[in-house]
């Protein structure tokens, strides 16, 4: 027989009353969603671990101090904390989450996002979808470099090793990929802004 699922609010109450096991259940229940959310903003595993950890340290302190105001869902509250910590990180580093790029067009400059509200998230997801669709129009060699660089975060050295071409060729393909992307966007009259 399946064990009944204990509601988050019940687990929170039990944790506040001293049941440490409830915290573990809450973390295991929501860890993927929270971790993925943070990773989607910072694109760095180590940094994601740090922010994930800091998020729960804040959660724990707030709960133990009795400052948790249970008006909304527990997960929404935790996600808000994670989001604020991501913003703090970028503020501290005086930069927005974009890739540095000396090319004349940085595709990720259209993806910056400081709001968490659902509407913006939907728009952002839509844009990401559009970008992926546009990338499909690129020739395979250009598509390959662009995806390795931006989606898999590989250096040009790693890309050249993976694709068996020189670093200069990889750089050239990236340049053409970005030029072509810009042309496709212009030709199809696609607007990629939030």
């Amino acid at each position, binding site marked *: 027989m399946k064990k009944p699922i204990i509601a988050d609010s019940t687990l929170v109450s039990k944790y506040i009353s001293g049941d440490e096991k409830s*915290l573990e259940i809450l*973390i295991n229940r929501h860890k*993927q969603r929270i*971790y993925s959310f943070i990773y989607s903003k910072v694109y760095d595993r180590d940094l994601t671990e740090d922010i*994930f*950890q800091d998020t729960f340290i804040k959660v*724990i302190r707030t709960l133990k101090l009795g400052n948790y105001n249970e008006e909304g869902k527990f997960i929404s509250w935790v996600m808000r904390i994670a989001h604020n910590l991501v913003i703090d990180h970028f503020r501290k580093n005086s930069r927005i989450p974009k890739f540095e790029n000396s090319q004349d067009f940085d595709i990720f400059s259209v993806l910056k996002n400081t709001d968490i509200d659902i509407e913006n998230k939907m728009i952002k997801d839509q844009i990401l979808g559009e970008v992926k669709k546009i990338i499909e129009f690129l020739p395979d060699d250009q598509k390959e470099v662009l995806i390795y660089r931006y989606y898999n975060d590989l250096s040009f050295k790693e890309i050249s090793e993976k694709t068996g071409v020189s670093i200069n060729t990889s750089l050239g393909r990236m340049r053409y990929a970005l030029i072509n992307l810009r042309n496709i966007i212009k030709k199809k009259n696609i607007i990629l802004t939030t």
Partner: protein
Amino acid sequence: MEKNYFFQEQIALEPKRKTINFILNFSKSIKAQKTSLGSVIIDLN
């Protein structure tokens, strides 16, 4: 078959076990205590 470059994105994104253990140990290592100025966190270690 066409190569799917986006496939590498489909990896499980979850924290390391040691991160979770750190959080759980942190939770066990602190305690809130009420004072005249309000609640404060006490480190039990």
